[in-house]
């Protein structure tokens, strides 16, 4: 288990408005666990890839509220933490796109059909600011709008699908899903790699068997 402490001191923070004493040198999730906080279910991988443990945080002495992944954030004295539970319903309500691969017709057009809101981007940077992985989300949407699907998708290599960009968009664009569509169609449309194609054919011809 991963929560041994050597220090006896505690940090005072607030969680959903309630004061809490937590051990320092811990990630936010470890600290919440250790303090016996009972109302926290959004944790899974603890490595910053599942996007589950998103939280709103205001650090002591700073005015802006930030979105963070709690497993990737250390406890700091005086921080205010809010579980953005209201976002859960909001993000699922925003997802109306339906498609199957291969998508019929040109993917660039299909993207606009599936995500018509892409054309309405206000360039407010809200999505980019919200991204806990530092992705230039807004640029991705611009590229997608211009039909540059591969370039748009490539910006989202680090995306963990936390939906924070989606919930922060005033035009109800779902940027991470736009990017995922771009990535999936890019992968699907790529010619089958030679080494894989050759092996598939050899297997089909029955040339490769296993004996024991």
């Amino acid at each position, binding site marked *: *288990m*991963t*929560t*041994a402490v*050597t220090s006896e001191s505690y940090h005072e923070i607030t969680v959903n408005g309630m004061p809490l004493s937590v051990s320092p*040198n*811990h*990630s936010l999730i*470890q600290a919440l*666990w*250790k303090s*016996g*906080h*009972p*109302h*926290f*279910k959004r*944790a*899974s*991988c*603890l*490595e*910053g*890839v*599942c996007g*589950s443990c998103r939280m709103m945080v205001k650090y002591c002495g700073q005015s802006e509220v930030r979105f963070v992944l709690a497993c*990737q954030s250390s406890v700091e004295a005086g921080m205010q933490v809010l579980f953005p*539970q209201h976002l859960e319903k909001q993000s699922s309500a925003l*997802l109306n796109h*339906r*498609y*199957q*691969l291969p998508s019929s017709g040109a993917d660039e057009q299909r993207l606009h059909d599936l995500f018509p809101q892409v054309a309405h981007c206000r360039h407010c940077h809200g999505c980019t600011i919200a991204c806990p992985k530092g992705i230039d989300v807004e640029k991705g949407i611009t590229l997608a709008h211009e039909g540059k699907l591969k370039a748009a998708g490539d910006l989202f*290599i*680090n995306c*963990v*699908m936390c939906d924070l960009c989606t919930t922060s968009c005033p035009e109800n664009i779902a940027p991470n*899903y736009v990017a*995922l569509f771009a*990535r*999936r*169609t*890019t*992968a*699907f449309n*790529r*010619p*089958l*790699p*030679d*080494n*894989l194609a*050759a*092996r*598939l054919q050899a*297997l089909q011809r029955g040339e*490769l*068997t*296993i004996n*024991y």
Partner: protein
Amino acid sequence: MDNGTPLEQARCEYRIDLNRPQRAAEKEHAALLQRFHPDYASDNRIPLTIGVNRHDPCHPQLAALLQSDSQTDEQTLAAAEQIETEILVIGAGGAGCSAALVAAESGADVLLATKLRLGDSNTIMAEGGIQASIEAGDTPQAHFDETLRAGHHCSNKQLVKQMVLDGPAVIQWLIQQGMQFDHDQRGNLCTRRAGGTSADRILYYRDYTGLEMMRVLREAVRQHHKINTADYSPAVELLSNCSGHCTGALLYSIEQQKYSVVNAQSVILASGGLGRMHLNGYPTSNHVGATGDGLVLAYRLGAKLQALDSFQYHPTGLAWPQTLAGTLITEGIRSAGAQLVNSRGERFIDELAPRDVVCAAILRECSEGRGISLASGRQGVWLDTPVLEQQQPGMLAKHFPKFISLCDKAKIDPYHSPLLVCPTLHYQNGGVVINEACETTIPGLFCAGEVSGGIHGKNRIMGNALLEIISFGRRAGAAAAAREMPDNTERSLAHLERFRHERQQHNIKNSGQQGPLLFPHYASFNRESA
């Protein structure tokens, strides 16, 4: 255990050395394992006292859980809401999602139930890659032979053969779902070598192979009109008819705080492993929900299990800083050229020997005074990444973004400083016995992925887990959908009655522990959590 060199001192003594000598290759892997690998310690094995695997060896912590009582009774069942589906899939990682997709493609109505959210799993954390023999110099036969050898010839050969031959088609299927892989300049899929193998057979996408796979499968599942998903709904018991066949499951919705009975013609268990049981007090690389639930459910229903005393301790878990202890550092980094170095600056093992051997070698260094020690008493050895950076500048940043973000969080500069690593509980080698169609010994119950056993023998090689989950996940989906509806669709807990009777007969004491665990004790995420 000898004390080893304190971390601060070892850090001062560390020098980058491109010509580090490597100790002569181990002649006797068996002796090394016998002396140092946790699986081989005699107190890590006791005979089970009840159930179909009675008298079989099992890890004591797992034995206590498998033989623990259920939290369920007939009253709960009677009061629960009823849900009908053709296929119930339990677990929404790679195996569960691919099973659901294939079952849905063949026309079945699928309910995909998961303890956390769709995609929350060990799959999403997989870094190294997926094995498939596709290079001209490589053959499926070599893949087969090396899987068997690394597993100490304890695998079910038929299952391994099928999986290995599935490999290239699995990759093609994943690409068709929209998954990206790294390509070389000629458009071929990039490959690299896994420990314990002779050919470049690992396909990957950066060190995000699992994340990329899961992003794509999750979206494919979401987009499929035949699949319904139930998040935060762990299965707490399977259901049976009077012939003992599996006919559904009892789910508990954490959000609504109520039970539901799911009636299904087939149930696919794809619930993953048990790293969060922290066997022998080890840290783990697993996600929070990996608590061995599937083994408990299957065992109570009477399904046969195997190799319950065999686990993989991945050689390179982060040992310092302590708050991140157990976090995995991918074998891909060793495959690329990072070295394992003890406190004396010696390379003590072939970094690409099989995982169990590398793990035992690290534990040997620590126990013989050549480790690097922490104030907590835990020890580790260096993973020398500066050497890799010197030899292949830019390699780390380009191919291992997940690793770099881990280093940022740990405040370690991997270009100039080595990382302290020690083994971390990573994988359950055994599991539920299955045949080629993923059928268990209980009709109506199928298994795929880490919860099943027989493929990896006593030690798994890198990249075979991702191959297994898709290969067997797809087969489970197809076989479950093809199964005809049984005549007797009664849903009861008759098997639980038998199980409780056996507990009584053998005088199994209530330890206060009930199975399935659902969550580790320190994650205070109980049934009342919202």
